[in-house]
């Protein structure tokens, strides 16, 4: 098996080379490098994120998922999405917080060890976005748990998320 893998690697078979990937702009590449430096310094090379969908339309989550694809490959910076809030440094919330998700969001927040950072992703999380005023949403994450940082957009693109994380790092170090 191991032999097989090395053989494939050597032959370049089934390996995605950088040249095959959709390109990132020079600006995005620079963002990535700055981001890495910040994470290395502040989080000891490891930032663990727990994503919680609190009633989003699902586009925001797909953009978070896209961060883990080979194009953005956010894991190479020591950032990863984890399965349990107990392993997380940061909670990334999406959605306007539907009433029926309020309790679950609070519980997830409380299960995350302190110091915890809450980042709200997407216009919905600011004031309910397009759902603002509906009886079934709470019009924003801050009405349910304290928010440290917002990344706006509907949805924010993977690039927006990267620059959001970067700015967040700058804010934290201040």
């Amino acid at each position, binding site marked *: 098996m191991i032999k097989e893998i090395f053989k494939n690697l050597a032959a370049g078979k089934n390996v995605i080379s950088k040249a095959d990937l959709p390109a990132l702009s020079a600006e995005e590449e620079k963002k990535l490098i700055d981001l890495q430096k910040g994470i290395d310094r502040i989080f000891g090379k490891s930032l663990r994120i727990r994503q919680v*969908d609190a009633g989003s339309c699902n586009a925001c*989550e797909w953009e978070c998922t*896209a961060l*883990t694809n*080979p194009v953005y490959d956010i894991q190479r910076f020591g950032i990863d999405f984890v399965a349990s809030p107990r392993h997380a440094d940061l909670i990334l919330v999406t959605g306007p917080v539907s009433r029926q*998700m309020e309790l679950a969001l609070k519980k997830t927040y409380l299960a995350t060890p302190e110091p915890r950072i809450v980042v709200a992703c997407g216009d919905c999380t600011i004031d309910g976005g397009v759902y603002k005023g509906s009886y079934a949403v709470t019009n924003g994450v801050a009405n*349910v748990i304290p928010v440290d940082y917002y990344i706006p957009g509907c949805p924010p693109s993977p690039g927006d998320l990267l620059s959001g994380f970067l700015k967040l790092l700058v804010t934290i170090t201040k």
Partner: protein
Amino acid sequence: MIEKVLDKAVKTREHLNELYIEISKEHLKKVCMYLYENKDALLRLIFASDEREIDGSFRVYYVFSIPGVDRFFIPLISLKGDDLSFPSITELIPSAHWYEREIQDMFGLVPEGHPDPRRLLLHEAFPAQSHPLRKDWGISDDDLKEWGEGLARKEKNEFMKVEGEGVYEIPVGPVHAGIIEPGHFRFSAIGETIFFLEPRLFYTHKGTEKHFEGMSFTEGVRLAERVSGTSSFSHSSAYCMAVERMAGIEIPEKAKAVRTLLLEMERLYNHIGDIGNMCAGTGLAVGYSRGAVIKERLMQLNDRITGSRYLRGINIVGGVTQDIFIYAEDILSILDLVTKEYKGLMKLLLGTVSHVERLENTGRLSKDIAMKMGVTGVAARASGSNDDIRKAHTHLLYDRLVFEAHSSARGDVFARMMVRAEEAECSISMIEALFESSYQGGLAEEVKEIPQHASALGYSESPRGSLFYWVMSDKNGRPLRVKLRSPSFCNWPAVPFAVHGNIVPDFPLCNKSFNLSYSGCDM
């Protein structure tokens, strides 16, 4: 035709391909059964609307379509006064069960004889006897607070219990391990084998239908685009189609072409992404990554041609905002590349025994159950159905394109992958074919005044299956009712049947093979 089963004359109303048939409560079962059994009609959706401002009645509509006939048969009943119950047809047509429970939650109309009349959309902490889609509904701040806290039990809604030696329960969710939407699953397992699964969804219920009523029809497009992220364009197309049909607008040929093109682009990025995602369920990292790269390429293309990775901001009531055909070169060259990469991916997947073995015979859904439960889209076609709205009720430019409804009789996870694979290839050739002609007309038709109390259906075949909107205007030409029926609402109830007898660790794989939307289902 219907007259045959009824003794007295019935009132019918025809609008485009919709035939509304007013019947009395007593005749409901007979008419539905006639359509369902004698005509093999598919139950597309059931919905209610509060039309008390017109004549003091609530109405319940049953939308059927008969295979091979481009027409919707819509028996409807009116409920007035104190007697707000209607006969349940769930025991005759099982796919009616969720619709009837939904109507009970949202309108307080009682489906009499329903085998499982528990709440569906509204969880236990929501006040009793409170029905959001009624026009005179309101809720106090205290009730809202308690609903959000989620601790009160205002109307009991117990999980079904499976008892017997060795049966134990595994509760999962609503917050899951991955980056996915929330929902609760209650497994009753015996050893590793799933005996029974009861999903409890609607955690992301956002009151979307009611929210539509507070907007104008033109503003509603923005909301329709945000019902289910990865089907944004299918939703906005179906919504716009419903409003346009209601207002009597015929959109220009060019707008039709743009919509057809982008519907197929949406299907393409979803299907390829889904095929890649299924690899996450079998631990095939290289397949997952390669799928994700192709998807990302398509998303970036979406962004370049429409300004949105999710194809938002193109549809408006009356047409579209941009001519996408000017990007022919970009689109066709990316498609060339994607075709190559995608063929390589499929070769890899089908050549990986460990992957294929996990897919074969897993999560089997029989045709019989799929049909009875009213399953739609890829899931239905992978279980032997050949229903595809693009063919059954052809619209936009689909009548000019050559394609077939791909279908497989296997019903397992493998079949769902293969149906997606075939459809993705088909979408590519449809997109290429669209570029071979030129199209007349402007981008959008002007929206005239919207008539009073008019109504119409709109539909599309989204990547997940058939999608319906039904809209009705009030006396001021604003929305009186916007009903949306997402394919996930039809398919969720079938998932427990597909996972029965599978092992718990295969559940994520089965679930991914359906790839249902929570947000779309929960509304």
